[in-house]
């Protein structure tokens, strides 16, 4: 008996992990794609239309225009995180994580596979929110290449964060801590709904410690050309954080941390 692996420029195991990760969330599309898009649309209606006039303009743009990049980033980071983290947690819970652990797959392929699966879902949700938002307020797309770079780096960062969380968590309750106590507070306090320029000086300084602030403002810079923080430092920091988290994921897989006994 012998096996003949298919020759391909892109390794088949890596492609398979991406296929599985993407196919998996499409099977539960109501939960993974429609629910976050509907939530974002509700935010747009409530804050954009109903309350938007009370906030006035931000950097010369309507509140609705200001709000869209923040909502896109919120959908993007949440879903980029949730895809690998829930996939790994479910695999560990159901035991099918052994399929990947027993297969001849390199650690880099595993990390990249889960990361791309998460990125795809994050970008799809973020993109869908953007498409729906365009019917309500078309943003000017001031720096499109920068916009794409920020979206890719942000989704990669939170996918990698999701891999770390999925490996680390031993039960679903552990995993629930991340969106509840970290991602949601940082997103809400990171300037999705307001500019930090309206905050008192002390809270403005405190906000600068929030990494989501840089990501949301970077995306806003891509759309509107305005930002509360230096957009190029934001992108550089995102790139560095991506590299650091990628290394952390690799180290966890190589050591077998919470995966191999």
């Amino acid at each position, binding site marked *: 008996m*012998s096996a003949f*692996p*298919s020759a391909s420029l892109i390794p088949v195991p890596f492609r398979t992990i991406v296929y599985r990760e993407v*196919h998996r969330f499409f099977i539960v599309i109501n939960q993974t794609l429609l629910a976050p898009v509907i939530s974002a649309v509700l935010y747009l209606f409530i804050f954009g239309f109903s309350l938007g006039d009370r906030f006035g303009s931000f950097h010369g743009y309507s509140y609705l225009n200001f709000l869209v990049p923040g909502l896109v980033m919120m959908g993007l980071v949440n879903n980029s995180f949730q895809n690998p983290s829930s996939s790994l947690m479910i695999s560990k819970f159901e*035991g099918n994580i052994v*399929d990947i652990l*027993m297969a001849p797959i390199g650690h880099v392929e595993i990390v990249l596979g889960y990361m791309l699966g998460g990125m795809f879902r994050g970008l799809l949700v973020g993109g869908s929110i953007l498409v729906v938002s365009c019917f309500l307020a078309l943003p000017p797309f001031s720096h499109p290449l920068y916009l794409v770079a920020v979206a890719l780096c942000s989704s990669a960062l939170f996918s990698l964060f999701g891999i770390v969380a999925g490996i680390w968590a031993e039960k679903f309750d552990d995993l629930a801590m991340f969106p509840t106590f970290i991602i949601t507070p940082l997103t809400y306090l990171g300037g999705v709904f307001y500019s930090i320029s309206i905050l008192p000086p002390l809270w403005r300084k405190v906000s600068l410690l929030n990494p989501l602030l840089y990501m949301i403002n970077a995306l806003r810079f891509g759309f509107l050309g305005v930002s509360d923080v230096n957009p190029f430092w934001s992108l550089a920091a995102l790139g560095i954080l991506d590299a650091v988290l990628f290394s952390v994921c690799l180290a966890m897989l190589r050591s077998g941390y919470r995966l*191999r006994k």
Partner: protein
Amino acid sequence: MRALSGITLSIPRGELFGLLGPNGAGKSTLINIVAGLVKRSSGEVKVFGHDVERDYRTTRALVGAVPQELVYDHFFTVRQTLKIQSGYYGLTRNGDWVEELLQRLELKTHENKTIRELSGGMKRRLLVAKAMVHRPAVLILDEPTAGVDVALRRSLWDLVRQVHREGTTVVLTTHYLDEAEELCERVGIINHGAFVALDRKEALMQQIHHRCVTLEFSSRMARLPPELETLGAKLSEDGIRASMLVDRNDASLQRLLSVLGRGELPLKDFQVYGAGLEDVFLQLTSDSSEKTVGRGASQAVS
């Protein structure tokens, strides 16, 4: 705490090897080290000369393992599961083999069902199909027939024999000792993380000297002849059966036959049970104070 200690085992290419032992003895730890699920703390484990940690990609491509637990991915159908499993092993053009596996394991009619819709036996068969999807040179089966019905058990045995005939090295752990007796060429019995026996199946069974003899009478006996009582025979409560253990290394059997040969007993039937792996297993894995002969002893006092 060490799960395994002092294990030295070499399984020749093409062998059908049985790994037996009580729960917690270290069987799964041993095979999980080979499969890459457990990291060894010391020692060396190789598959066809390749170290399972240094050359892990080579060894994992050579090994297919059926885990003990029913692990499955409920998002996918049977066919999708096998496609994904093939992809993990770098295979995209193995459709014919996947088809053959579906047929052999009687999963063809269920190929579009999600795993949740399968019965326990079908899930077990799917695990076997997954382990074989890349045509492994070494197939490790960790209790493959646990919880399956008799017919399926037989068909899984046939499959194991077939892949073994085709040249696959098979390592089987099982709680069903008749399964090891039926299938395996060589058997290792592990207890407290170390081998207590490692030999050919027949050689191990030779270690058991006792035979269990049962006699059935055509009429009720009030008591047994004194010669039989001195051989340890016990009469059942209804007086129509007697059973005893005889040692094949002494003259017990000869004396028994001599008593029976006189024709004074209303003998209707006569049965001798040889030692099986179960006897060997129990003798080697029970504490010394409790050593017994499994099947023989249980039948002798029934």
